[in-house]
């Protein structure tokens, strides 16, 4: 056995000597390490010279499991088989080892024959792995062009060749090639040639396994039997059905590496293939048919990544049209028929024909979804920014050139949407508002609407994430809120409608944490519904904390049909209501210890004795606080007259 080199890692000198004494005569070359650290040094320096590592589990300094974790984390080493030395009765240790990727075990004291045969089995498996790797490197991967087909084979040599060919079309091809090799060889040896597990153990121990295979391959009735492999490849998934002509076997026992077989020299291939090679692996019927599948992401090709297109309707603003037509990252069509993608149209024929460019507006829509329709002023930068956020969001990631160029227009427009606090609700209350963005565009927004009869509707929302895409979602929320009939709908119903509108329109993972409510100044009450925001707080005239509400609720757009609760808080005359996003908490405490930070804030507010104390405290806090760090911030303080 030329050049098969082992690294023996054991802190006991006597154990290392015993192993050397047993293994050297069998032809193995031996290196030794007295602890995990020394072994790691040898592995790092030795590169890929080792064909197996014999590892003692218990060692001072770096123990066996710790070294194992380092080996498995290193791409050049993770495939080298590790043979763990353990006591027969240490079941948990063995289970932990299997979990960590150890497939071979040796018991102390050593039986020389078993020792040699386990080490040989592990090093042969590794040699096969390396051979498959070399073959894989030569393949072009053109087999991925095949969507359906059948292969027929009969010998282990053909099995390995086919394993490499099939795996070359798939990601993680080295692991997959090993898996195919296991399944195909299993189908030949145990299926067609009917050599069973016990016979294999004996033949392996006697060194006659290869001989037995060759004999049966030329013997009736085995010599006429074939293994067929059917391949079906669809988008993102390839299914391989491997059938042999044998009698089948009790496959259930081999799907996992179990304690009963952990010390055997063979019988772990199916469990390893299932675990490391395939997305699914299922034996069928009596066990002579196995179906293995691999799921993958299709590589992006010119054809599969279609350029997005925009349908420009007639009579949109000339500057906007020129801008949108001048960008090569999307195609512009002017089709009159119904388009399924992004449609840019004038808001109305009347406005579009006006000579006053400043009054002109653009409507962007995707299908009929209300949350996917936006009206914007005809500012080319703003329209381009929004179009990019909608159809090429990656070009508006923070720090990209397009983001740097276009985000200011988005930010300006977003700022214009915020209500004028000098006007809103001024007869009944005073509003102070603070907004700060942690990046180019805020993911927070707030709004207010006078509903008449002394009622003021308010919302504060925090869209997932930061930057332009989150900013676009704030515009969508604002548009949806502006279109609603807020006079006749209770806050819980409003959130339900927003949830329904957002769920199909926003990509999964994007949503709005928000609070919406109505201040009834005559009744001295705030009725609201919340969707996963910090709780609203009411203070009295002197700044004393009166009551806290609840911000609990599923964020809007995350569920689609969440039953939001209608809640209310009493507001004393002259008292203040404070609504805010969690950016304020980040400002209060950068360590994110939410409850503590807010409790401290409340304690500081109390008893300051001044009218309008809550707003003053908030203003002090926000202006004196550190710059907004990781989050956008919005805070509202509404003081009731009286």
């Amino acid at each position, binding site marked *: 056995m030329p050049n098969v080199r082992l690294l023996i890692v054991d802190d006991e000198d006597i154990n290392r000597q015993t192993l050397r004494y047993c293994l050297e005569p069998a032809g193995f070359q031996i290196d030794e390490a007295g602890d995990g650290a020394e072994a790691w040094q040898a592995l790092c320096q030795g590169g890929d010279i080792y064909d197996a590592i014999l590892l003692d589990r218990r060692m001072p300094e770096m123990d066996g499991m710790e070294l194992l974790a380092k080996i498995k984390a290193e791409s050049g080493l993770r495939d080298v088989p590790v043979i763990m030395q353990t006591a027969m009765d240490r079941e948990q240790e063995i289970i932990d080892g299997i*979990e960590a990727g150890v497939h071979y075990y040796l018991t102390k004291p050593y039986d020389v024959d078993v020792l040699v045969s386990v080490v040989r089995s592990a090093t042969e498996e590794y040699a096969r792995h390396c051979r498959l790797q070399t073959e894989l490197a030569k393949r072009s991967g053109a087999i991925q062009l095949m969507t359906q087909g059948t292969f027929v084979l009969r010998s282990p040599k053909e099995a390995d060749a086919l394993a490499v060919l099939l795996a070359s079309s798939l990601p993680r091809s080295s692991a997959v090639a090993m898996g195919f090799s296991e399944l195909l060889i299993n189908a030949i040896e145990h299926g067609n040639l009917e050599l069973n597990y016990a016979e294999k153990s004996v033949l392996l121990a006697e060194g006659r396994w290869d001989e037995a295979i060759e004999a049966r391959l030329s013997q009736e009735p085995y010599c006429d039997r074939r293994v067929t492999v059917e391949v079906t490849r669809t988008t993102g998934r390839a299914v391989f059905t491997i059938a042999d002509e044998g009698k089948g076997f009790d496959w259930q026992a081999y799907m996992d590496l179990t304690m009963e077989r952990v010390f055997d020299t063979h019988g772990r291939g199916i469990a390893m293939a*299932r*675990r490391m090679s*395939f*997305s*699914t*692996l299922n034996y069928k019927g009596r066990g002579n048919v196995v179906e293995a599948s691999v*799921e993958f*992401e299709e590589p992006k090709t010119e054809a599969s990544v279609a350029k997005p297109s925009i349908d420009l309707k007639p009579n949109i603003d000339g500057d906007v049209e020129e801008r949108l037509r001048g960008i090569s990252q999307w195609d512009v069509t002017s089709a009159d028929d119904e388009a399924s993608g992004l449609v840019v149209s004038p808001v109305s024929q009347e406005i579009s024909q006006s000579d006053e460019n400043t009054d002109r507006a653009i409507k962007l829509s995707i299908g009929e979804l209300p949350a996917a329709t936006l009206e914007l002023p005809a500012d080319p930068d703003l329209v381009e920014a929004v179009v990019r956020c909608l159809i090429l969001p990656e070009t508006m990631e923070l720090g990209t050139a397009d983001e740097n160029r276009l985000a200011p227009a988005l930010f300006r427009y977003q700022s214009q949407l915020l209500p004028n606090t000098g006007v809103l609700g001024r007869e009944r209350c005073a509003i102070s508002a603070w907004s700060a963005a942690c990046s180019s565009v805020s993911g927070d927004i707030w709004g207010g609407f006078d509903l008449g009869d002394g009622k003021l509707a308010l919302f504060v929302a*925090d*869209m*997932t*994430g*930061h930057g332009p895409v989150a900013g676009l979602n704030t515009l969508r929320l604002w548009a949806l809120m502006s279109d609603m009939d807020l006079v006749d709908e209770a806050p819980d119903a409003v959130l339900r409608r927003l949830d329904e509108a957002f769920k199909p329109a926003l990509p*999964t*993972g*994007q*949503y709005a*944490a928000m609070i919406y409510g109505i201040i009834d100044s005559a009744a001295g009450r705030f009725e609201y519904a919340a969707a*996963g*925001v*910090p709780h609203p707080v009411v203070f009295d005239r002197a700044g004393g904390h009166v009551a806290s509400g609840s*911000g*609990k*609720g*599923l*964020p809007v757009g*995350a*569920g689609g049909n*969440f039953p939001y609760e209608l809640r209310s808080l009493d507001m004393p005359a002259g008292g203040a209501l404070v609504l805010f996003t*969690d950016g304020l908490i980040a400002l209060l405490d950068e360590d*994110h*210890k*939410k*409850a503590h930070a807010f409790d401290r804030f409340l304690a500081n507010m109390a008893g300051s004795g001044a009218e309008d104390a809550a707003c003053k405290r908030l203003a002090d806090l926000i202006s004196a606080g550190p710059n907004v760090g*990781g*989050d956008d911030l919005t805070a509202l303080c509404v003081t009731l007259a009286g």
Partner: protein
Amino acid sequence: MKYQISEKGDTVTAQISGQMTFSDRGEVSGLSLALMRVNAEKIVVDLSGVEYIDSAGLGVLLILREAAQDKGKGITLTGMTGSAKEVLELACFDTLFTFA
């Protein structure tokens, strides 16, 4: 955010540690693929090592949930503590995930 995938019996577990925030959004497809390629009956996301989770971190969980739903499976969240637990409870994620 860091994660480690392990499989035991019919359960695959993703053990997540560190902070789950906006800056981790690039990790989600890798995590999702790693979790879903294992042919396990149950999917568990262990958040015991998570110190902080923000809205984008919750978004990561929603993306994993959708990938699991595509395979007809649900996700169990375990080990939440401290502010991560508060955030998950505030956002009523117990209506979307099994808390264990």
